[in-house]
């Protein structure tokens, strides 16, 4: 009964099965380089992510305009690929209903998405991984308590609770990050718990204990490095999860507040114009899709790379 309900684990099944072990497989750098080519998803994801990171990082320097600069005389200029006299290279992706440069807003929006995704992941990772590792390592009552916490957390409808709390506390970037961070730690806990359970029975743990290491020392220098693989994979996928949720909150008007450029908010703001200027929705929506796709491809690829045995058995 100390176990999690089956289905809590099922949600993270594919991650749980990824074998816990040292990050670096025993192969030379060259071999590893070749193996990368077997994972096209990983490479595509990494390249996409890199370009989005670059766009976000450069937003302050190379974005053509101020993302908040309104100019009502220049509103709703279509992007350059549309056969329209108003389309101009000054605003390559056009302007929105308030005359703000869409390319600049998209670039700054990437920053917001990444900021929220990464900060949320840090909070939820700290909470979830901490709980999971403790539960897996000590077992017994601690495990029971953590499993109970996970089950309880899974019962709460995330979107609703996030919406309710954000609307009551008052929405801001910090509130959104905090609320999501303290809601999304469940997968960390589930995966890290089972990864730690696998590590706990290894000989090097017994050896460390035999030479008199304290629990803390074993946790930090033996367990943590050996569950790093699954931890990184979950962390990657949770960034995508957080970004998706933030976009939904912002879309409903309860996430990032205007005039801050958030992709979800941009879609919401353009909704009324959807049938006349569909590109207003297609651009931020597409950006969101590509970012989440890139992170997921990267995370999945990373998992396959780190658990080559289970992969080759499966694909045989």
């Amino acid at each position, binding site marked *: *009964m100390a176990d999690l309900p089956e289905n809590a684990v099922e949600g993270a099944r594919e991650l749980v099965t990824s074998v816990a072990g040292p990050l670096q497989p025993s192969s030379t750098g060259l071999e590893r380089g070749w193996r990368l080519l077997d994972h096209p998803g990983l490479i595509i994801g990494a390249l996409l992510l890199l370009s989005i990171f670059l766009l976000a990082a450069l937003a302050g320097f190379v974005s053509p305009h101020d993302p908040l600069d309104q100019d009502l005389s220049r509103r709703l200029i279509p992007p350059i690929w549309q056969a329209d006299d108003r389309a101009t290279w000054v605003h390559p992706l056009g302007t929105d209903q308030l005359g703000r440069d869409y390319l600049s807003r998209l670039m700054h929006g990437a920053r917001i998405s990444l900021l929220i995704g990464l900060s949320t992941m840090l909070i939820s990772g700290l909470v979830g991984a901490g709980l999971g590792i403790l539960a897996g390592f000590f077992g017994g009552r601690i495990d029971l308590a953590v499993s109970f916490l996970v089950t309880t957390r899974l019962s709460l409808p995330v979107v609703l609770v996030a*919406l309710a709390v954000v609307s009551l506390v008052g929405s801001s970037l910090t509130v959104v990050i905090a609320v999501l961070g303290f809601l999304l730690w469940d997968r960390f806990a589930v995966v890290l718990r089972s990864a730690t359970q696998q590590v706990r029975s290894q000989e090097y743990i017994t050896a460390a204990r035999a030479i008199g290491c304290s629990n803390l020392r074993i946790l930090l220098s033996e367990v943590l490095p050996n569950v790093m693989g699954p931890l990184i994979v979950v962390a990657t996928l949770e960034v995508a999860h957080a970004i998706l949720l933030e976009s939904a909150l912002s879309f409903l008007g309860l996430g990032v507040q205007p005039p801050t450029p958030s992709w979800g908010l941009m879609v919401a703001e353009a909704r009324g114009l959807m049938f006349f200027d569909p590109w207003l929705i297609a651009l931020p929506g597409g950006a969101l899709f590509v970012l989440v*796709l890139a992170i997921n491809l990267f995370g999945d690829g990373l998992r396959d790379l780190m658990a080559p045995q289970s992969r080759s058995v499966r694909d045989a």
Partner: protein
Amino acid sequence: MLRYALGRSGIAVLVALTVSFLTFALIHGSGDPAMGLVGEGGAQESENVRRAYGFDRPFLEQYRDWLLGAIRGDLGRSYTLRAPVAEVVAARLPTTMLLATFSLAFALALGIPLGVVAGARPKTMVDRLALALAVIGQACPAFLLALTLVFWLGVRWQLLPITGSGSWANFVMPAIALGFALMAGVTRLTRACMLDVMASDYIRTARAKGLRPGSVLFKHALRNAIVPVISLTAVQFGFMLGGSVVIETIFQIDGLGYLAWESIQRKDLPTMQAIVLILSLVYVVLTFLADMANVILNPRGRPA
């Protein structure tokens, strides 16, 4: 088996109680309940309301009263709808259940066959197609898919009504938008489980006996591969009820999600609490049932 069921239901009750406390604390604690009633009124007015509604009492006492009421089926009165919350919620719940059931049906009807075929023939075109669809489904925000469907099916081609919940046609687009991510998850999980199962000895035996491939796939392999999918489905059904806020708002479907959205906008705390509580309870019950189904379908996992 009975002991297992009793133990699990004990945990379920504990979880339900904890969830009820969290729901009450989160919503009562993050907003001033009097504010929703008074609106723009002055300090004196909100003080009066606080006293009249008992918001000045100790927190635990308020929670106890709310919980005891909830157990009797009394979830308080809605601030804005001038009706008991339980009535309002009961009126809206069926629509959301219907929507979630349609979404689920869509996800399973597409996800399981795709996953089975992909898992039985890895690295073929079908497999690649299924994986691509799954990857897309997991990366596409539901609201974006919903708007895309509205744009093409609803407006450009005028095939389906855009808003409302009057007939079954109203549910097609919302069900697809809500169920697409689950379809992706089901496809991936079914495929992964099929890969595992197809490599096992009893499938080799079944094949060696000369059973028809279809019979091997669907009668022998799927039966074992389906167990985790049932769990995933139960969990996701709960998530879908919550996620329906977004979809119901877009399509203006008169369900629980839309009600939640309205009550959040109007700071109608009792309604918000009731909806979160009910969705959590649905989840608790579903996962309990899924656990039981698992034990029945998979005797190996049965505790002694």
